[in-house]
């Protein structure tokens, strides 16, 4: 079992992960779901840093640190992509939620919708 010092960080990390996962499942608003994913990834990074801090040695283990750096970059990219896509979904459906599979029965794609509408004012 890890030391008391490190236990708290490891448990905090997994708690964030579980909390983020719960929010992802339960929340309907797209922005909240994207934030839930960010909370989940913060939890994972927390665990990695705690693992790095635990190791005996003159410095913390640099390998998990580098992994977290990579993870943060990937996470930022994911968030950027998710936001752009969520904006397109909102523009196309008028709602800020994902519907429940009504799209499975949507009519076929003979005439596609225009790729994006330029909004006059950006949303705040």
């Amino acid at each position, binding site marked *: 079992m890890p030391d008391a010092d490190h236990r708290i960080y490891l448990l905090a990390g997994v708690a964030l992960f579980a909390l983020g996962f719960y929010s992802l499942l339960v929340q309907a608003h797209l922005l909240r779901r994207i934030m839930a994913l960010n909370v989940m990834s913060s939890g994972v990074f927390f665990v990695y840093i705690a693992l790095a801090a635990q190791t005996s040695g003159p410095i913390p283990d640099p390998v998990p640190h580098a992994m977290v750096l990579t993870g943060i970059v990937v996470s930022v990219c*994911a968030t950027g992509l998710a936001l752009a896509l969520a904006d397109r979904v909102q523009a196309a459906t008028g709602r800020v939620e994902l519907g429940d599979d009504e799209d499975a029965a949507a009519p076929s794609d003979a005439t596609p919708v225009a790729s994006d509408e330029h909004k006059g004012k950006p949303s705040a």
Partner: protein
Amino acid sequence: MTAASAIALLILSPLAAAALAFALPKRGRALALGTAAVVGAAIVQLTRAVLAGGVQTHRVGGWGAPLGIDLRADGLALLMLMVTAGISTAISLYAQGYFRSGHDDEAPHRERYFWPLFLFLWTALNALFLSADIFNLYVTLELLGFAAVTLVALAGKRAALTAALRYLFVSLSASLFYLLGVGLVYGQCATVDLASLASKAQPGPTLWVALALMTGGLIAKAALFPLHFWLPPAHANAPAPVSALLSALVVKGSFYILLRLWFEAFPALLTPGVAQLFGGLGAAAILWGSVQALLQARLKLLIAYSTVAQLGYLFLLFPLAAEREGGFVAWSGGLIFLGAHACAKTAMFLAAGNILHAAGHDRIKDLDGITHSLPISVFAFGMAGLSLVGLPPSSGFAGKWLLLNSALAQGQWWWVGVIFIGSLLAAGYVVRVLTHAFTRVAEPTTPNPLPPVMEWTALTLALLAIGLGFASHWVAELLRVGAPVIGPGLMGGTAS
């Protein structure tokens, strides 16, 4: 070209091509075809090296695991690389015809972004199949997921956008589960290298939970029942070449990682109970997916549910190959089936794309008489269906035959029933489409014109799915190199 440079080229050339395709939009297709040539040459070299010298490992940077990252080419990796290269080359040929023949203003925009996204997808797949490091696999999974999601959204219509966003949510959360699992593995074993894990991993709570996390994420990405819900809308609403890439290749990437994890890194944790659980979920996927496919009104949704069903067959590999001595028949059978499915499903989606383009819709009951206008595409669909159902001499038959034999030889006769019912249901939904296609109509409607390359690529892939059945013995011998399971092949062959 040495094995090391072949491995490097397999990753660097699609990556550089992707960047160039973004910087120079007009050169997209040329870059894709150029990549196909380079990748093809690299695969030939690597295959020679593997067949002559066994598994080829490259220690990137010279550091070596566990500090560095290792890239490894064995029979399995090569098979996946070959399938990827074949399908991607066909898609490169198909795509230009597809986007150029679009009637709408959006088509040039879509074509412009298709090429870099497609080339990133190819990079991700090649990197995934060659990687022997579970953290590196996370990065390749993310690369793969982003490219796939954006390609789905490229269709632009509302159904595609919502399907893409749902896919993105599933993909991102699944990746995070996987990443947390990797962290726990590192915390326990101080390594993330597949080969070192085999010796350092001891069953215990941490590893069980870590493996459960990683598996959970991967089966969501592989759309195994019951986490398959995101697949049908995404594959059905994406542009046709994208649907083909997704069904044939992207979902197989996560399956491949599952094989590596359970058979190479943590074989001690692959207990019979776990193996049967995988098989059970696979069986549920086969039955559920096939029944759903029968009930669909739209052609592309039918094909998408068929993918859900066919992926179930792959998971039958777990209970059948877990028998480490003598499991090779199932191992080769499952993987041959994977290749067969990739070719056949691509052919089906391309044919469906042709039909959609020509007829303007994909409602199955209104497809009467389509053979008159698209004989080649319908023929391609039929041949692909043959392989999907598993009739000889197709490669689909070869794969299923090997799985059946393995099930009978090990006394796991319950999978035999599942395979038979699955094949019957597949015949059901394939015949349903063909019946409509072959129905004569009094006055056939004039179809929209279609570039010939679109039809011919579909046909070539369908014929490949059939013809590769003849090459299954060679494929099995290739798979033997570095395989984690041993045993005689079906026709005898060497027990290694």
